[in-house]
């Protein structure tokens, strides 16, 4: 039996309607577990990060200070700088740990093939963009992830890695001085860290919109692993 393996498909008759239903196992436990723990920590890191940012909401010099942006208190976490730093310094470890397990599982199991964007996916991106944003015809669905999805999830993963690297430089710019130099120094690392955060927030917003549009089935598949009647099954 390969029921618990990614890619496994199971069929059963729905008791009420008598229809044959097929379900595919898309997300193994490690991925689902990391997905949820990582999303909670990302939310906390963004909110506490914005509170930390408000202690000096600028990317320029301290004297004279020119504020870049004011973040409403409602969107922040921690209450004061010290509190926000505690949240940030606690949840970064959960974020990093789930990130490592997530990446490690993908690589070691070969599961990454389902979602990793490669140059071969390039020609498929535009038709999906045309479909989603310009009312184009829907391309035929042949795989769990379409090329645009692969691009989105792969970029989000890259952003996740960058958020950790830029964060490491902000936290310990002396110990990670080589990395700091690559980023243009401590000052620029702060800019990159903020930019990467913006990218991740954009991804999450887009991700949530797509989950809402594509409905319950998709959402459930990240909870149970199984997706009922996926379009790509022949």
């Amino acid at each position, binding site marked *: 039996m390969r029921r618990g393996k990614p890619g496994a498909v199971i069929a*059963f008759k729905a008791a009420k309607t008598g229809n044959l239903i097929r379900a595919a196992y898309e997300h193994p436990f490690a991925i689902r577990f990391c997905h949820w723990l990582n999303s909670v920590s990302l939310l906390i890191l963004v909110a506490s990060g914005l509170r930390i940012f408000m202690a000096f909401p600028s990317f320029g010099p301290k004297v004279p200070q020119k504020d870049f942006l004011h973040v409403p208190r409602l969107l922040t976490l921690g209450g004061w700088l010290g509190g926000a730093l505690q949240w940030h*310094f606690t949840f970064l470890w959960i974020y990093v740990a789930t990130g490592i397990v997530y990446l490690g599982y993908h690589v070691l199991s070969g599961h990454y093939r389902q979602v990793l964007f490669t140059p071969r996916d390039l020609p498929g991106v535009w038709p999906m963009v045309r479909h989603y944003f310009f009312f184009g015809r829907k391309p035929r669905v042949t795989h769990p992830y379409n090329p645009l999805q692969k691009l989105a999830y792969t970029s989000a993963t890259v952003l996740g890695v960058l958020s950790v690297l830029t964060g490491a430089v902000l936290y310990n710019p002396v110990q990670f001085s080589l990395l700091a130099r690559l980023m243009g120094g401590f000052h620029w690392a702060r800019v990159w860290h903020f930019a990467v955060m913006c990218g991740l927030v954009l991804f999450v917003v887009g991700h949530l919109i797509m989950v809402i549009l594509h409905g319950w089935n998709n959402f459930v598949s990240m909870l149970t692993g199984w997706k009922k009647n996926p379009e790509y099954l022949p």
Partner: protein
Amino acid sequence: MFPQLACSTLRSRALRILALGERMESFTDERDFRRFSRRSLLKLMPVVLVGAFAIPRLRDSLLEKGLAFSDWASSKWFRAGHPAPTYPDSELAPLTQFPLNSYDVDDPEIDLGSWTLKVSGEVQRPGEYTLAQIQELPKVRQNTRHICVEGWDVIGRFGGARISEFLKLVGADRRARFLYFECADDYYESLDMATAMHPQSLLCYEMYDQPLTRGHGAPLRLSLPTKIGYKSAKYLTSLRVTNVLARKGYWEDQGYSSFYGL
């Protein structure tokens, strides 16, 4: 994995495996599907434990542990011999643009003429040390980056004696864990021995080649390029070499990181 499926005769008849490309397809019934989807859902339950952070009493102690873990990790990858970057004079911020961050007063009105640094604790030669005695030690001048916990940073020029040289002068026990400083403005600060021994850690009496101004901590302050800004205490009045800290520091005791190495 699901032995109960295999023993039912009805199901074993229905249990066929079809090859769909590379996929394996098997038959079951709806009840079983519901059962094992529910089981996979339940396996995610540990994620709910994060909810402990919503309970105020647990939250405070969990966050404290999180911060302590961060401090511990960052003290592990602190390298005693690894220098903080130094910068050419052209990258210095002018002294007028070097921010003054004082927690209460800009000038605690020290009488500079009679000022001494009182040294006590695990040292062979405790007592009061004058600024002249500190200035007799080899002088180090360095352009380093001062980074504030708020997020701003500034490259400044600092001059002074290495803390390590001063510890030698007073005969400090280097196996002691901490240095504890008190200041004229009631600020206080602690420093781990490894950082104190770092060659760039200074008892600083000059900024931009001029004696410290009152606002910047005259007559003596710390300059620690491998620590976050609030560790570089100003207006020093006493130093104790110790293994036990009753207090960790003005900001640390309010919940800020106590190691905060850079």
